[in-house]
């Protein structure tokens, strides 16, 4: 089979059948690309997972782009990424046409009031899971606390704080602290 088509179909299959995204997908990608197709090695897969964790954007897209590019350069990357996205794109597109009409049915509207509660819990759960994995230093804990306090104040008191501005500030503070520590070390100073 044509390699581009094979890349597209392999990732389309993963995109069509993985619920929950992210880490569930990594297992499937590993199974398809390392074990079955042998497109990349297990070490490659580990590397791309680490890169995906520290880069922005969907992890599954990072992986698809990586595998596609390794196999067939830019066209391969495009084929794999398109395959990853297309199934869910079509499904969501279809649902979006009907959601409004759907919500006018009383039972469905009531069901969605229950779902709203579940979504709040899922978001809290996502944050807790991330916090458990966080490498805890005084700085990282302080950033979590400040971000939580600032965003909570903004939410409850109804003023706007851009998440991006807050992110950039956190990045800058972290860089600054690191640079100061480095400078101290190079001057022969003692660690704090």
């Amino acid at each position, binding site marked *: 089979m044509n390699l581009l088509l094979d890349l597209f179909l392999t990732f389309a299959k993963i995109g069509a059948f993985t619920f*929950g995204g992210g880490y569930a997908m990594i297992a499937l990608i590993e199974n398809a690309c390392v074990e079955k197709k042998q497109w990349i090695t297990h070490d490659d897969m580990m590397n791309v997972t680490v890169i995906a964790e520290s880069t*922005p954007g969907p992890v599954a897209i990072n992986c698809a782009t990586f595998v596609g590019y390794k196999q067939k350069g830019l066209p391969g990357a495009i084929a794999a990424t398109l395959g990853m996205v297309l199934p869910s794109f079509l499904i*969501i597109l279809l649902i979006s046409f009907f*959601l409004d009409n759907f919500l006018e049915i009383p039972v469905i509207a009531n069901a*969605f009031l229950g*779902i709203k*509660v579940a*979504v709040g*819990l899922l978001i809290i759960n996502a944050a807790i899971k991330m916090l458990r994995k966080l490498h805890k230093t005084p700085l990282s804990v302080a950033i979590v606390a400040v971000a939580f306090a600032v965003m909570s104040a903004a939410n409850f008191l109804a003023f706007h704080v851009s998440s991006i501005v807050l992110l950039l500030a956190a990045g800058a503070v972290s860089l600054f*602290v690191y640079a100061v520590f480095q400078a101290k070390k190079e001057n022969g100073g003692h660690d704090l």
Partner: protein
Amino acid sequence: MIYLDLFLGFLKVGLFSFGGAYSAIPLIRDVVASYGWMDEEMLAYIIAVSESTPGPLMVNLATFVGATKAGILGSAIATLAVILPAFFIIILILQILKNFWNNRYVQAVIRGLAPCMMGTILAMGVFMAVKNVLPGLQVSAFDWRALVLTAVLGGVFFGSGKIFRKKMSPLLLIGISAVLGAVVYSF
């Protein structure tokens, strides 16, 4: 123009969502609120639908917002915008920047971004949970059904991890919440 707004809005989401799928949610909330595209209630609904359908959560949300605001073209543009940064960053790393991402100063910046995202996500989740019980943050609007649902679903969801070693899937939680919501709010 709506297409340009969708493109730029979701490019920002794709560029700043450090730390997994849920980190995109506060960013998407910023974008839809600043353009007035949808209220928080609708956002919660599309998060639920995006969790219950296959594919990456972030991509599903982009497709959904694009489709409700500007049809097929809008959804294609929003989806493209949200995946472009991830796509090009991987190619750049493979091509030129092999050492850039491992640079200790770049890593120092990234170490600041992840905890900030966690605090932001936690704040948003807590706010949504409170607002479900107190719609509009008005004490007079207290919704006792939502309080019962929050207690029951929270107990079942977080308790399941303790009892069965493995926490129930988001999909199952959404399913149970839909059935309970339909029952509780129909009386």
